[in-house]
């Protein structure tokens, strides 16, 4: 029971849990925009770089890590890799 309460509190305390990155997310057309979107969703941006013409960002959230590739023309996610 106590654990449940704790979990509930945790969920309430972190608004980030409300919105998660998916393959359909649109994050922005510049590296700054993509980073800002991810930060707003509660992700910790570890690294951002251009990779094969795509914006690649390494992120961490809730003990999980992943990489996302964004098309700078459309701002949409092209690849999402969770590790």
């Amino acid at each position, binding site marked *: 029971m106590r654990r449940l309460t704790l979990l509930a509190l945790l969920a309430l305390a972190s608004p980030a849990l409300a919105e998660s990155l998916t393959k359909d997310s649109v994050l922005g057309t510049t590296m700054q925009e993509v980073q800002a979107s991810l930060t707003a969703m509660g992700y910790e941006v*570890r*690294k951002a770089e251009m990779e094969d013409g795509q914006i690649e960002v*390494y*992120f*961490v959230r809730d*003990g999980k*890590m992943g990489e996302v590739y964004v098309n700078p023309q459309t701002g949409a996610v092209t690849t999402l890799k969770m*590790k």
Partner: protein
Amino acid sequence: MAFTSKPNSGRTGARSIPRARKLISASGTTSARDIQVWDPLVRLIHWSLALTILLNGAVVEEESQVHEWIGYIALGLVAIRLVWALIGPKHARFAAFPPSPGRAVRHLRDLLAGDRRVHLSHNPLGALMVYNLWISVILIGITGYMMTTITFFGIDWVEEAHEVVFGWLLFSVALHVAGVAVDSWRSGVNLVRSMVSGRKTIPQGREVE
């Protein structure tokens, strides 16, 4: 007796006799010998480690699971070799090739002066290279593992370190191969063949250390 010195006989004899004959006029009284130096585990680890470096450096996708597994295998191989250097046969032990810059410098000087002595284990320069290669693989393995942890995932310096040390490893491997070629030519012992067969065929009259 820690190593067995036997006359040319059996399998390897056929190959070493002609070489010995050629050297008779130029050399002293000791006859050519075939000496067992590298045990099967040393050879297996040597070639397996070379394979892991080749695979992870040039064949396997960098961010793949396979790359990670091959990296752990490389770490495991070095770990086993280090234990073997404590408990293995004489020529495989740390004591047979201590890391000594002083000895390496002296060896280099002797080498330039035309010394053609044969070392049964690694020569002092080769010894430094062996430690360098192992340390490099360990550092690459550690930084590689770090990249998979939440603490160091996406952290730039870890990735940089992983790549810089790998570059150093490639340079070292090139130097290692060059060293093997030079020492084979200098000492008259085909070192590549001895890492395959485990035996060093010492030319007649050659001093052994």
